[in-house]
């Protein structure tokens, strides 16, 4: 094990998502730089967060498919309240955005590569990835370049 892979793990104490059998493909994809969500093989509906069956067909005939990674900022906030350990004092206020994915579902995330002063609702964004540890890479969003 190299020092590079250990260091972020040791210093990272923000909440980490538990990985379930259901959600493992999502995190496997993120690690490889692919954002994917579930699609129903019967009716083609897509949804997020993950669920055991298509909310329209109620069948479990679905698969993970890569999505465009494009979306818009539905809205965003700056969090000042210290609810969680793990954010250092100089990280406040931090930005949380609610992304409306091009495919329809919404996803909470954060924004990178942009100053808060330049953020606006309906800003076009595209996915990027931030490695946290060997298991978890978080999808984040930056202003769209394409």
């Amino acid at each position, binding site marked *: 094990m190299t020092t590079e892979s250990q260091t972020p793990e040791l210093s990272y104490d923000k909440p980490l998502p538990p990985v379930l059998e259901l959600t493992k493909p999502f995190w496997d994809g993120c690690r490889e730089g692919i954002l994917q969500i579930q699609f129903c093989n019967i009716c083609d509906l897509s949804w997020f967060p993950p669920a055991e069956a298509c909310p329209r067909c109620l069948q479990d005939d679905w698969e993970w498919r890569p999505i465009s990674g494009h979306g818009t900022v539905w809205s965003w906030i700056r969090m*000042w309240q210290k609810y969680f350990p793990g954010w250092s004092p100089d990280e406040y206020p931090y930005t949380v955005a609610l992304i409306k994915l091009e495919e329809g579902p919404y996803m909470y995330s954060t924004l990178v590569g942009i100053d808060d002063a330049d953020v606006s609702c309906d800003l076009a964004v595209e996915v990027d990835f931030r490695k946290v540890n060997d298991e978890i890479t978080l999808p984040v969003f930056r202003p769209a370049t394409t």
Partner: protein
Amino acid sequence: MSNQPDRSALGNLQDKTAIVGVGTTEFGAIYRDLDPERSAYELGLIAFREALKDAGLKRTDVDGVIVSRLPHYGRMCEMIGLRHPRFVNVLPGEGRQSGIALQYAALAVANGMADVVACIYGNNGRSAGAKYGGESRGISTQAMFEAPYGMTSPGAVTSMMFRRHQYRYGTTTEPLGHLAISNRANAALNPNAVMQRPITMDDYHGARYIAEPLCLLDYCLINDGGVCFIVTSAERARDLKHTPVLIHATSQASDITPVYVADDFWHEPMSQIADDLFANSEAQRDDLAFAQLYDNFTPTMLFTLEGMGFCEPGEGGDWITPERIGLHGEMPLNTGGGHTSESYMQGWALHVEAVRQLRQECGDRQVDDAQYGLYACAAPLATGHILKRDN
């Protein structure tokens, strides 16, 4: 929406049942007196005792119990010596459930499932250290897909919605300030309110951000307390102590999404509820003496006013003026001080305030000509009622 249901049968409940007793604990006094041993059941018990006394009923007259935020009906029934209730239900400790508790009580009484239903709520959140944010355990959507970004708390999602409203309609935070200031002014006339010192627009704009654009004064309090209301038939109510407050019209609608927020600020469910209420009442908006609007955070009131047609979507910011929403304005709002100043009883104390206003018991904060009053809660699961003072 496809397959529009026939909602006219909602009118079958009109004036069949009444709230005949209301009770609360002290709010202000216990706010300053944290007690780690204070249980939600104890607070529920105190409120129940007050409500029974208010109604002039005996403990043994009660044959139905609905509890909320209390983990188990059994302990509550045991503590109030109710061994053989014939109608019992438990609702989670979410604010949207207070209106639903009243609906279940009315349905049970109107259909003979019980004669007298006590709806009991107890909240020891302040003493227990509740933060309403920062949870990241377990395998919830919150833990998996929100907490890793530091996304947490009902206030933050409401702030997301308000920012969107600002973007879409140019709304400023000024009207939120008016709501917070008005709530506080009403609370100053309410001896039981937790926060009684009046605030100004400068105080509002100077308050620290929690989830920007919302600040501390947009937020509900976190305090301990208990509330109870007792429901029986309108017929029986007329033999009791007080003028009955009739459950005149009531409705429920919803917009349940994975991310809590609604792109239309809950216009669809709230307008559905308004349509239901006014279709089943001789009263219209102008006949309402007040509106008790769920105010976990001030923007929720703005969304409710727009959704229920007090103004057009996007015009809430202009509609909310101190003159209009004050105690002697055209639509007094949250006359007891609401969740931001009276007490955060998750809608339960708003119901009590509605009853007391309709019974003309509110002293310095009494509104004029209180014959009809509105309660409404905008949320993914939304409710509204028109309550009416019996003639």
